[in-house]
């Protein structure tokens, strides 16, 4: 069933695209409390936001370069870990970004109800 396989693939791609857009918000929200990569990934997964390390770490770096996150290396459990937390600028941005998300959510909800 080539058609079924193609539409499954398309759905998967669109789903990933949709989730990718919301990842930044999820990561920023989760980093209101300081965490290192592995625990952050687990925390996101626990809330249904599965993200592989190959996506998370480059994203963390990008957000840090953009000044939204701060990081520092610290030892925990006899191992050096890089801890991330929201920067003051990140805190400022998170609020309107979340409001934007809610607005999109309610808009979509409205569109779906109408149709």
């Amino acid at each position, binding site marked *: 069933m080539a058609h079924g396989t193609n539409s499954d693939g398309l759905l998967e791609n669109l789903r990933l695209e949709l989730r990718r857009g919301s990842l930044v918000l999820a990561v920023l929200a989760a980093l209101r409390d300081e965490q*290192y*990569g*592995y625990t952050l*990934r687990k925390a996101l997964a626990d809330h249904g936001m599965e993200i*592989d*390390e*190959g*996506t998370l*770490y*480059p994203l963390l*770096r990008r957000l840090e370069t953009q000044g939204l996150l701060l990081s520092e*290396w610290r030892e925990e459990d006899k*191992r*050096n*870990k*890089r801890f991330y937390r929201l920067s003051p600028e990140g805190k400022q941005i998170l609020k309107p970004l979340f409001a934007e998300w809610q607005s999109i959510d309610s808009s979509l909800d409205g569109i779906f109800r109408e149709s």
Partner: protein
Amino acid sequence: MDGGTEREMELLDSYLRAVKRYLPRGQADDIIKELGDDLRSQIDEKATELGRPLSDSEQMAIFKENGDPMLVARRYRQDRRSLSLGWELIGPELFPMYSIILCVNLTITVVAIAAIALFTHTPITIRDFYFAVVVQILCVTLTFIILNFIRRKFPQPWYYPPAELAPLIPISRWYSTSGLILWSVVALWWLLIPHFPRVLLGGAAAHLNFSPAWHTLYVAVLPLLLALISQRVISLARPAWTWILPVMRLAINIAGTLIFFLLVFKGGGLVMANAAQYDHVADVANGWLMWGLFGPWLWMYTGVAALVYAWYCVPHLRRLLRRERMGPAATVSDVPCESGKERT
């Protein structure tokens, strides 16, 4: 540190080294430290869950989930340049390598042409460079377009697995099949030469005979071609026998290096003129054979390939020794990964 943990670190370090190779230099150490910590945490968690150290294939499953080292590193790169003409010809993961190889090739070409012109005291003109540069650009670009096509068509496999992890990645069937076709065509061509010398010598074949040195070379190369075909057949039938590839290619390349080195070292022509007036034709043909087709590049190439395959044999040897030392219990580490995720 017990044996299991030591082994875990060995494989993890090997994976991280492979990722590091493709990372931007300034950030590589930092990224590897962080990625290493994450993977180590995953290994530890799984080991705690199972109550024992992970087997090689269980660790490999974690690395596979993380991805091909080249692709993992690509995600950290800001450089997203690619070559497109309406559709993608060379993707961003191959583009950096493409631009490096193209630059190196063009530099060597330009320098070589200029050096030859200076050496032979001939005036340098733009036309001298034009053809060589265009050919270089076309060849390198076409090669990378094909590579890109293969990557898109077969997105799963790891392309250049680190030696330590290679034994855990079954050899992909399309890789064995394409090699089988290629070497079968080469072997057929080789078999046709005694009956149709034109396939090697072209129009000059009518004026030339093969020398005894050629017959020695011919007989020596034949088993090498058969061995190359056999390796592909075995790998096709048994993709999980990953040791076959490096071991057989090591042997083939060592033999090839000796044969082609002795050919150049001993000198002498491979063909002779069948009449005195065609001596110059024999000279040209010998020049083409001894410095072109079977020139020094060939034994150098097989020599380097032998070293590379020797390097890839080391982990297999180490696994064998470990199995000898630890007995059948060690075989838990040797379960290959599922054949759907293969190596190219």
